[in-house]
């Protein structure tokens, strides 16, 4: 099944949609109705802002996965990096007396630092201690999330609320809304996206990272210092996760609530989107937007039909599995 001129993701997506339809039909649903509701729920004019709003963090977490993936590294620690950034962003406006826009910039900068440090620590695990990055990044999620959970559950808890969460940040430090659903965070994410694409296409470091992804030993022979590069790529990736955490806290949640950043599973959807495009930024972003539409539509589908919204997760996973198999087939023929 190789068609000239058709990107390999297209047949994988079509086949995944077919398998998903079979699942819906087998569990007593109407596949056409379900898919129709997904399309309307995601792309109808009045729903587009919802899709965009979901796409802001999801595209961010896609970049978190895509940056290291471009160099052949897998960062599974997005959850911990996101939480570290979100918590810091929720605390800075509470503790520092400063004008609103200073607070927003400072909170975002420190959130980047926090996310970047957590990710760099995972990178250090591989570079210094020989623990595979996949494992060191993943294992760090648990202590970071546990510690954040304890902090907002006990010492930093808003005593007036029944939930484990911090006190709400002052209105001056909240990102200005943009219409009913979106907020200024969407522009911030657009800026991040442009930076990453520029880095990938037009800088020496971006070229070196791509080279590492194609052949790490060749890159090292060409003078790339692999250890330092791994740390830098991870720090950048974690910093983007920190930004996502900051934008969610400053733009829509206005406080750090235990579990609120992780329950939508942006990290894993983002990872799948990045895998779909093998870390190439523009393709990854497109895949992230596609998955955002799929999930936003999934919520609408669940409201309108009896089909559970987890169908979107199943479809995403199927696309990745089919693509992994297809790549293998193509490689065998080559």
């Amino acid at each position, binding site marked *: 099944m190789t068609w000239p001129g058709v990107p390999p993701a297209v047949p994988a997506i079509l086949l995944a949609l077919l398998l998903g339809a079979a699942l819906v039909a087998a569990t007593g649903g109407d596949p056409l109705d379900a898919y129709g509701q997904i399309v309307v729920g995601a792309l109808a004019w009045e729903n587009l802002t919802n899709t965009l709003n979901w796409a802001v963090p999801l595209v961010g977490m896609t970049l978190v996965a895509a940056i290291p993936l471009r160099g052949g590294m897998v960062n599974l620690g997005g959850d911990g990096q996101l939480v570290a950034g979100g918590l810091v962003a929720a605390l800075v406006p509470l503790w520092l007396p400063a004008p609103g826009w200073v607070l927003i910039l400072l909170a975002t900068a420190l959130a980047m630092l926090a996310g970047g440090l957590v990710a760099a620590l995972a990178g250090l695990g591989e570079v210094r201690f020989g623990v595979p990055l996949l494992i060191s990044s993943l294992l760090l999620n648990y*202590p970071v999330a546990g*510690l954040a959970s304890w902090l907002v559950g006990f010492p930093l808890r808003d005593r007036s609320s029944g939930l484990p969460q911090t006190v709400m940040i002052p209105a001056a430090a909240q990102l200005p809304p943009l219409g009913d659903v979106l907020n200024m965070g969407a522009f911030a994410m657009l800026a991040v996206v442009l930076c990453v694409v520029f880095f990938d296409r037009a800088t020496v470091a971006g070229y070196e990272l791509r080279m590492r992804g194609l052949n790490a030993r060749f890159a090292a022979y060409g003078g790339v210092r692999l250890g330092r590069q791994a740390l830098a790529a991870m720090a950048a990736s974690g910093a983007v996760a920190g930004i996502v955490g900051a934008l969610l806290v400053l733009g829509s949640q206005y406080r750090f609530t235990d579990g609120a950043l992780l329950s939508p599973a942006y990290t894993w959807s983002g990872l799948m989107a990045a895998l779909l495009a093998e870390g190439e930024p523009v393709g990854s972003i497109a895949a992230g937007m596609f998955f955002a539409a799929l999930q936003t539509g999934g919520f609408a589908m669940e409201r309108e039909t009896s089909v559970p919204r*987890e169908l979107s997760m199943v479809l995403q996973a199927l696309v990745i599995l089919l693509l*992994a198999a297809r790549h293998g087939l193509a490689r065998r023929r080559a």
Partner: protein
Amino acid sequence: MSGLVSPFLVHTAMQSVTPILLAALAGALCGQAGVFNIALEGQMLVGAFAGVAASFLAHSALAGVAVGATAGLLFALILAYGATVLRGDAIVIGIGMNLLASGLTSYLLRPLFGVTGTFDDPRIVGLPVLTIRALSGMPYLAALFSGLTAITWIAWGLVAAATVALFRTPIGLRLRGVGEAPEAAAALGVDVRRYRVATVLFGGVLTGLAGVQLALGTITVFSDDMTAGRGWIAVVAVLLGRSHPLHAALACLLFGFADAVGLQLQGRGLPSQLTDIAPYVVTLAALVLSRRRRMA
């Protein structure tokens, strides 16, 4: 510290470590055959779901065991063929399988049982525990070894059997050859692909059983993502034990004891958010220490 390590503690650790132990054994065997299996988490979740569903529908724990193991085997087909015949990337396939398992089990809860999040029903039959009469006169030993499920005993038996099979039998030699030097093994007439497929599928059965023990062992319930990182801990145990079943099993025990000590400390008033991270920190520290020594 002395009050922290009691026979009760060891017993708790033995029971809670069984799912991780079985998954780590599966991972170790796959590692020996040269397949990096990071789909353990998803396979365990599928086994847990299928086990609970079958136990509920057939009112039988045995049906839960049989269906859970079979579901683990069927789900492992994706990795078995994806990473060998189709030559896909085992890591990408593993990530995809974990998310597919998470999404699919969560999806199926509603059409099959009409619930979301957690499926808890008195008609789900849990695994029986084995009481050893001979130990009734010895309270310490009874506290240790009585009241464990059959799967726990089988898991330890399999660790021993797998160690012997790997290092003392021709099949084990071929399996290790397939992992260490696939070209050489193929040149000697060993069907590399068939060995890998069979190992991954056998691992699927083990991981399916791990899920059954998790969902029908001490509790009888299925809930979304109830594996909660146990499959990943098993992956870490495989790394710590360098794919040696016995060494991986010891790594699992380390994790189990950290977990059980954490529970004890929680009983003494430490917040659960902090004690819950103890096993992960201990495992990470063990990984860092063991690797550093090797690198020096």
